[in-house]
């Protein structure tokens, strides 16, 4: 059972639709007890980092998520991925969950449009459990103005958008995608399928 964490922000239903389509059992939850009981966790998120972190704090789930992150596979999507890192400087310096070393800052891509929106091809930095079956050149759907800055050892897939854009990050069994696997067609579903199979 995959728990999709509901803290008031994020496109929960798109993720749920994709998991349902893949016949991966899932539940949208805002209960600490359920978060402890499920087998895997997904942290979605859209919008601005400070608002989302505040909403997460207000939900009272932060501590439980950090505790459970080491025990079961976890996947942050888009802003949910950025929240896995130490802090962000979107508008103001705000602390994140600190599960993966690194920070979040604005994309610097001179001459290119911001947000980075659309289908970008990825390259492989490191293989990880979620990247199985995904190759250089596969395209994923991105929509974001901020990126993660982290050491390459935590990057599995990245996009080159006039800037180094980590697309899939990992540390132990904690994963994050900057792109939206639930909107990236078949290859995105493949990644979610990989996640659903993790123990």
């Amino acid at each position, binding site marked *: 059972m995959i728990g999709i964490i509901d803290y008031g922000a994020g496109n929960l239903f798109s993720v749920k639709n994709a998991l349902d389509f893949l016949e991966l059992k899932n539940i949208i939850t805002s209960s600490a007890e359920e978060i402890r009981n499920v087998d895997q966790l997904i942290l979605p998120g859209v919008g601005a980092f400070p608002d989302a972190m505040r909403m997460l704090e207000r939900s009272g789930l932060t501590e439980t998520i950090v505790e459970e992150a080491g025990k079961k596979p976890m996947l942050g999507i888009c802003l949910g991925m950025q929240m896995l890192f130490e802090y962000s400087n979107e508008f103001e310096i705000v602390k994140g969950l600190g599960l993966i070393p690194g920070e979040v800052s604005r994309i610097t891509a001179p001459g290119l449009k911001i*947000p980075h929106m659309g289908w970008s*091809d990825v390259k492989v930095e490191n293989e990880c459990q979620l990247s199985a079956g995904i190759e250089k050149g596969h395209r994923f759907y991105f929509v974001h103005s901020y990126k993660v800055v982290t050491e390459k050892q935590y990057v599995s897939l990245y996009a080159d958008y006039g800037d180094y854009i980590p697309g899939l990050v990992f540390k132990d069994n904690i994963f994050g995608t900057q792109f939206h696997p639930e909107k990236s067609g078949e290859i995105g579903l493949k990644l979610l399928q990989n996640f659903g199979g993790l123990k």
Partner: protein
Amino acid sequence: MLAKRIIPCLDVQDGKVVKGINFIGIKEVGDPVECAIEYDKQGADEIVFLDITATHEGRGTMLDVVSRTAKNVFVPLTVGGGIRTADDFRELLLAGADKVSVNSAAIRNPAIISEAASRFGNQCVVVAIDGKKTAPDKYNVFVNGGRIDTGLDVVQWAMEAEKLGAGEILLTSMDADGTKQGFDLDMLNAVCAVVNIPVIASGGCGQLTHFTEMFQKTSADAALAASIFHYGELTVNQVKLELSQNSLPVRLL
């Protein structure tokens, strides 16, 4: 590098696709959900539903169409037609749309752009502009299917829309639309030159080379087409293969 997007558009009325469909293997001809699934299989990068329903009951049907599509198609979904308020955005986004396009309501009340952008994010606000040449190098914004000239200048309006928070411009040429003679490259270039948000080209494509020509001669990010795909003259994948052969970046299946 970002792929140039190919976006099929489906006109929907009371929950049914309006124009004829020649898809092979579709169970219920005219069901927008089945058509969207087919386009997804062909490699559509995004799907647009244009709701041309006039009645209130029909609007509810559209929400159902969107929600059923979102359960079966996993590429971005845009819905337009008859959007009047930011709450209309909310309903469609909750039903499963990723973006909502607004046309005449934004002309009547430009604040709808900023309100929707601040509530739901710029990325989901698409401003649709129907432009028509009124003098040399001069394009005006038209409404009511090209019948009414608003007097607004297309280039000025596109800039204004971006400033108000639009995440994307869907630019339809009322001169080229239906002609199958190719996209209106001049109007596209005029708009692409002044905005820093993605521009979707619409209207006029009748053959493969029109797509290549448009992407080679303008900086538009995407092409939207309806009838050429509806009637099975071309598949989305054929268009992408053609673009790819001409060294344009596309998402191939």
